[in-house]
C-alpha cells in the first residue's frame, strides 16, 4: 500500500513541478538556516569538560579595598598570588591548580627552526588530571616538581608536530625564551570549548601550546598574559606582581561529591574570615564556590548575537512552514477531483488521508536533503568569518540526524491540516463538479 502511495505522490509532484519545487526549497531554506544557527549555538554553548564540569569549581574571594564596594556585585574570578599560593598549599580539594596564561618564544634543540611565539599556560601539575587532558607521550608533572621549580614542560600535539615532526619528544629539550626545559609530556589534540579556565585570554581561545610549572615560569620571568585587576597601590609591573594588590591568577579545584563541596565551602569561608581578621581583606568577608556551568552563565560567554540568530532563523523556518501549509492546501484542493474518484471507488477517508500525509512527508525528506546542503553551505560561510564560532562550526552526527528528523516531522505535521481538509470534502460533490 505504501508503495502505491509513493507512486501517487510522485505522480502528483510531476503534475505540479513548480509548486512542489517551491515547497521543497522553502522547507530546505528554513531547515538550513535553523540548523546553521543551532549548530553554532550548540558548539559555542557546549560543555568544556564533558563528564567533569560538575565537579570542577572556581573558589572566589574578595581581597579588594573598599573603593567602589558593592555587596551585590560578582566576586572577582581571579586570585592574588598570596591567596592562590595559600589555597594551593592548603590542599583541601581532591585536586587544585593555580595558573596564569602567557606567551613565549620557543625553539627546539634542532636550532634550524627560528624561534616563534606560542601561547603558554603556567600552571601547577593538577591541571592535566583535573581537566582530563589526554597525553600522547609521557605525563604531566608532580606537586614536588612544582615546589622544586623543576625545569620541565608539557607541549601540545601541534607544537610537537612543528618542532619534533610528531615524534616522541619526551626527554628532549625545549628552549623557552632563553631557558632550557626538559619535555616530560606531549598532549593529544585538546581544547576546552569555551576556554573556561581563563576567559580573559579569549572566551573561545584554542588550548595553549606549551605548559610550564607556575613557579618555574615565575622564576624564569616568562611573559604573562591575561586579565589583571589592581586596587590601592597595586601596579601591573610583572617583576613585583607577586606582592601587588592585584588579582591575576586563576585557581580551580576538583570536588567530587556534595560532602567535599560543603567542606571546601566551609574551609573557604573560614579562610576569608581569617584574612578579614588579619586585616589583609578590608571588605566584609565574602567567598563563593562556582561550578563551571554557573560560571559560564554568569559571564554570559555564549554571545547574545548567536541566540538572536537562532531566534531569527526559527522565525524564518516557521514562515517557511506556514508557506508550505498554504501551498500544500492549494495543491491538495486542486487534486480534489482525483481524490473524489478514489473515494467513490471505495478508498476510505483514512487511506486518502494517509496518502496525502505520505506526500507531505516525501516533501519533508527532499526538504531535509536540501536543508542539509544549505546547512553545510551556511556553516562554510560561518567559517569564512572571523568570529568565535569560525573554527568550531562543523556539523556533527547529532545535528545531522536532528536536521532530517526536524524536516520530516515538521512537514508531515504541516501536511496534516491540508490533508484533513482535502479528504473531508464529500466525494459526490467533487464528482459532480467535474
Amino acid at each position, binding site marked *: 500500500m505504501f508503495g502505491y502511495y509513493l507512486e501517487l505522490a510522485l505522480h502528483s509532484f510531476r503534475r505540479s513541478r513548480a509548486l512542489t519545487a517551491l515547497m521543497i526549497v522553502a522547507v530546505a531554506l528554513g531547515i538550513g538556516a535553523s540548523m546553521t544557527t543551532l549548530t553554532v549555538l550548540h558548539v559555542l554553548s557546549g560543555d568544556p569538560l564533558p563528564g567533569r564540569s560538575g565537579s570542577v569549581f572556581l573558589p572566589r574571594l574578595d581581597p579588594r579595598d573598599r573603593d567602589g564596594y558593592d555587596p551585590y556585585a560578582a566576586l572577582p574570578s581571579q586570585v592574588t598570588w598570596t591567596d592562590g599560593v595559600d589555597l594551593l598549599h592548603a590542599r583541601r580539594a581532591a585536586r587544585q591548580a593555580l595558573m596564569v596564561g602567557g606567551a613565549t618564544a620557543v625553539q627546539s634543540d634542532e636550532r634550524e627552526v627560528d624561534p616563534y611565539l606560542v601561547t603558554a599556560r603556567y600552571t601547577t601539575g593538577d591541571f592535566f588530571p583535573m581537566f582530563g587532558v589526554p597525553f600522547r607521550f609521557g605525563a604531566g608533572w608532580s606537586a614536588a616538581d612544582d615546589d622544586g621549580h623543576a625545569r620541565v614542560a608539557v607541549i601540545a600535539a601541534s607544537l610537537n608536530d612543528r618542532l619534533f615532526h610528531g615524534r616522541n619528544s619526551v626527554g628532549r629539550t625545549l628552549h623557552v625564551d632563553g631557558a632550557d626545559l626538559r619535555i616530560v609530556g606531549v598532549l593529544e589534540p585538546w581544547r576546552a570549548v569555551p576556554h573556561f579556565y581563563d576567559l580573559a585570554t579569549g572566551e573561545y581561545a584554542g588550548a595553549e601550546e606549551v605548559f610550564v610549572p607556575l613557579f618555574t615560569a615565575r622564576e624564569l620571568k616568562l611573559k604573562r598574559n591575561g586579565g589583571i585587576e589592581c586596587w590601592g597601590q597595586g601596579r601591573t*609591573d610583572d617583576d*613585583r606582581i607577586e606582592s601587588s594588590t592585584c588579582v591575576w591568577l586563576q585557581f580551580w579545584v576538583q570536588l567530587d561529591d556534595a560532602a567535599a563541596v560543603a567542606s571546601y565551602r566551609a574551609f573557604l569561608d573560614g579562610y576569608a574570615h581569617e584574612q578579614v581578621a588579619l586585616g589583609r581583606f578590608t571588605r566584609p568577608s565574602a567567598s563563593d564556590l562556582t561550578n563551571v556551568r554557573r560560571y559560564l552563565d554568569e559571564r554570559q560567554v555564549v554571545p547574545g548575537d548567536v541566540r538572536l540568530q537562532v531566534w531569527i532563523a526559527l522565525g524564518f523556518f516557521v514562515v517557511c512552514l506556514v508557506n508550505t501549509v498554504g501551498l500544500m492546501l492549494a495543491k491538495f484542493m486542486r487534486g480534489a477531483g482525483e481524490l473524489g474518484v478514489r473515494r467513490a471507488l471505495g478508498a476510505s477517508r483514512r487511506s486518502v488521508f494517509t496518502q496525502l500525509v505520505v506526500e507531505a512527508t516525501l516533501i519533508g525528506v527532499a526538504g531535509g536533503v536540501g536543508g542539509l546542503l544549505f546547512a553545510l553551505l551556511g556553516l562554510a560561510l560561518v567559517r569564512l568569518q572571523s568570529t568565535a564560532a569560525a573554527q568550531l562550526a562543523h556539523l556533527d552526527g547529532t545535528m545531522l540526524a536532528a536536521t532530517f528528523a526536524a524536516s520530516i516531522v515538521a512537514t508531515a505535521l504541516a501536511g496534516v491540516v491540508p490533508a484533513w481538509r482535502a479528504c473531508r470534502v464529500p466525494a459526490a460533490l467533487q464528482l459532480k463538479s467535474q
Partner: protein
Amino acid sequence: MRLDVLPILSTLRRHRLTATLLVLQIALTCAIVSNAIFLIGDRLGWMTTPTGVAEDRLMRIVVSDIGRRGDIHARAQADLAELRGLPGVEAATIGNSLPFSGTTWNSDVSRSPVQGAPATAVTLYYGEGLAELLGSRLVAGRFFRSDEYAWLDDHLQGKAPGPTVTLITRDLATRLFGDGDPLGRTLYMHGDVLRVVGVLERLPGAAGFTRDRANDSIVLPWRMVPASGGGYIVRAREGETQKALVDAVKALKRLDPRRVIVSARTYPAIRARFFADDRATAVTLAAVSIALLVITALGIVGLASFWVGQRRRQIGIRRALGASRKDILRYFQTENFLLASMGIGLGMVLAYGINIVLMREYELPGLPLVYLPVGAAILWALGQAAVLAPALRAASVPPVVATRG
C-alpha cells in the same frame, strides 16, 4: 476608482483557511523583516562609530623580544628612530591601545579624593605623542609637553612619580563636569592627582564599554616600551599604508633578527576584527530577511496561481457579462492588497511584541515607529509584484471559457 471590496471579501470567506495562512505568513514576514531592518541599522550604526583618528593611515605592530638585553629605553628609542626614518612613515610611537582594538586598559577616575566617592570607569591611553599621532582633534587646551612624559616601566618599578596631567574626551568632560569648563579641573585616580590640560573631540576606548559610553577615555603622559602590552603605532603617509607596514616590519626585524613579530596589522584590519561579530549578525539578518521576502513572494505567486486556476470559469463569466481585462486585473490586485493589509496590521502588532522581547533579552533600544511603515511598504510592494503575473494570466482568460465545461 471602483473597488470591488465586498465581493472579494465574500470570496475570501469561502477560502478562509488558505487566506488565513497567507495573512499569517505576511504578518510573520512583516514582523521579522521590520525587526531585522531595525537590528541591521542598529549594528551598522555601531560598526561605523567614528573614532576621530586617521584610520586609513594607522597601523600597529606588536613584537616580542626574546631575552632581555641592554637598555630597554635606548632600544625602544632606536627602534622608533628607525621607523620614523622610513620613507612611507609620517610618525611612530609606542602606545598601549587603539580605539576598537580589543585589548583594553581601564581604570576609574573620580572628581573627589575621598575613598569610596563615585567613580567613572575610563579607558586609558598611553604613549608619547599618541593622541597627536592618531590624529585625534583637540577642541580645547593643549596636548602634552615633552617634559611631562615619563617612562611607564620606571613608574611601575617605583622609579618615577605618577602622572599629573591628562587629556580627556569631550563626552567624558560633559559626564564629569557638566557644562563647566573642564580645563584646569582635577581628577583623582587611585592616588594619582591629574589636572586636565586638554579636551579631545573624541577617542573611543579599545572595547568601548557601552555604546553611549564609548568615548569615556583619558590619555596619560607615559612613554612606553614595546613590552607589557605596548606596541609600535605608526602613521603612514597618504596612500602608503600597506608599504609602510611591510617596511616597518622589515626594519624591526633588521634591528633585532631574533625578535618575534606577534602581529602587524593596519588599523582597518584591527577594526574589522573588533566588529566581526556585529558584521556576521548583520549579514545573517540581511540574508534571512531577503530569503524570507523571496519565500513569501513565491508563496503569494503559488496561491494566487492556484486561485486563478480555480476561478477560470467565474472569470470567464464575469468577462462574458462585460467586465474588462482591467477589472479582472484590478480584482486580483485588490484581493492581494486586502490580504497584505490584514497581514501587515497583524504583523505590526507582532513586530512590536518581538521588539519588546528583544529589548528585554538583548538590551536593545525600542523599535522606532518609522520602521513599521517601512516594513508595511515593503510587503505591499512585494505583494503587488508577486500577484502581477497570476493576475495578468487571469485577465487574459477569454469570455468564451464561460460557455465551456
